[in-house]
């Protein structure tokens, strides 16, 4: 990977977004809606392949009442967010969170094809 990603050192759960602080002192915010729409699980990912289903996914995540999720580290490489409703399956690698923080497509424009089902 060409880009050297800084280490995420702090996550603050605010009313409607995360405030992220990296070890190079850069700070970002990622809304809960953006994060949930970018869920990498096998149920949510294929929905982002088509504009129409992606929009429906967006509408669905925006319909959920905003609340602070639980945040659980996964191994040493990812985080899992537990929500009171909707999907909590996604394991978000730090690279994915970094892409969202930088307003980049975390799927790198690639459709989801490697589903288990």
């Amino acid at each position, binding site marked *: *990977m060409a880009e050297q990603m800084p*280490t*995420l*050192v*702090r*996550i*603050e*759960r605010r009313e409607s977004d995360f405030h992220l602080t990296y070890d190079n002192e850069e700070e970002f915010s990622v809304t809960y809606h953006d994060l949930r729409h970018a869920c*990498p*699980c*096998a149920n949510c990912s294929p929905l982002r392949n088509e504009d129409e289903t992606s929009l429906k996914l967006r509408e669905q995540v925006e319909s959920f009442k905003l609340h602070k999720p639980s*945040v659980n*580290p*996964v*191994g*040493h*490489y*990812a985080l*899992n967010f537990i929500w009171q409703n909707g999907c909590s*399956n*996604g*394991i978000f*690698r*730090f*690279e*994915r969170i970094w892409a969202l923080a930088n307003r980049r497509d975390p799927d790198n424009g690639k459709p989801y094809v*490697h*589903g*288990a*089902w």
Partner: protein
Amino acid sequence: MAESPITTHDPKNEEQGPVAPSPQQKKEMEQNYAQMKRKMSMQEIGMKIKHKIMVLSGKGGVGKSTVSTGLALSLAQQGHKVGILDIDITGPNVPKMMGLDGHKLHVEQGRIHPAKGHLGVKVISMAFLLEDPDTPVVWRGPIKLGAIQQFIGDVEWGNLDYLIIDFPPGTSDEPLTVSQSLPNIDGMVIVTTPQSVALLDSRKSITFAESLKVPVLGVVENMSGYTINGVTAANSSVEIAGPGGKTIKSTSDENGNFSVTLDIFKKGGGKSTAEDFGVPFLGALPFDPGFVRGGDDGVHKIVSDPEGASSIAFSAIVKAVQAQISDKPASSLEII
């Protein structure tokens, strides 16, 4: 068998009192009761086993069982209590590699007692239940599911530090069933070889792990390179025709010893796949014909040559796995 205590009660007919269930109802109730008992047992087993590690590969023939047994033996060498659950129902190989070929399981009061292989590693495998090793197991999904749940819920593992679960290749029923039956799985180790086909399938395995919500502990690259050692004149250059006719050069030392590593299935693919997916790379294992001989003879290379290059490589991989599942916080990440 003692008469079943199961009766049914019809609320519409209060005067009638309890009614004996039909044989069909009774059978269903007994099955549900057995299933409930098994589920409770699986929860209890989950508590007695500190760490549960799944070993998968997208493609067959990459050395998954070799890695599973190697991890188990390397952990046992560290003094841990270790078990291996060979979930590869249609092609169980672990018993042969653990010197337990032909072993039969001991069943007492409805509980299955695992066999003990090298270094005290406990082993459960479908191979123990086959009358004839040449007989194929042809089971559809639901029967496999039942067998797997039985292997988890009805086995008397005792207290274990690590349970290594060896799966058949691919992303099918087995890992799904295990991840849903056994609580608190630490994660998956994905085994690959460096060639493109294996790497493509490994990438599926990584995505599969995410779908199952099981962390990927990392990728192991097996058959990473074959090292040839030789002796020639001191301080002289050596040329060997490698794969594809490529010339590989080396120079002998002052005693005339030289070594050349042939990257038979290419090199570094496991590491680049791990990097692409942002999961840890646990290490590379050399192409070692000793694994084949050891597997056939039932004496794993780690047991026969505990100081050898392969044992050292396994030890490094085990340390990398342990770093991933350590109880310490993932990093200095502050979550508020």
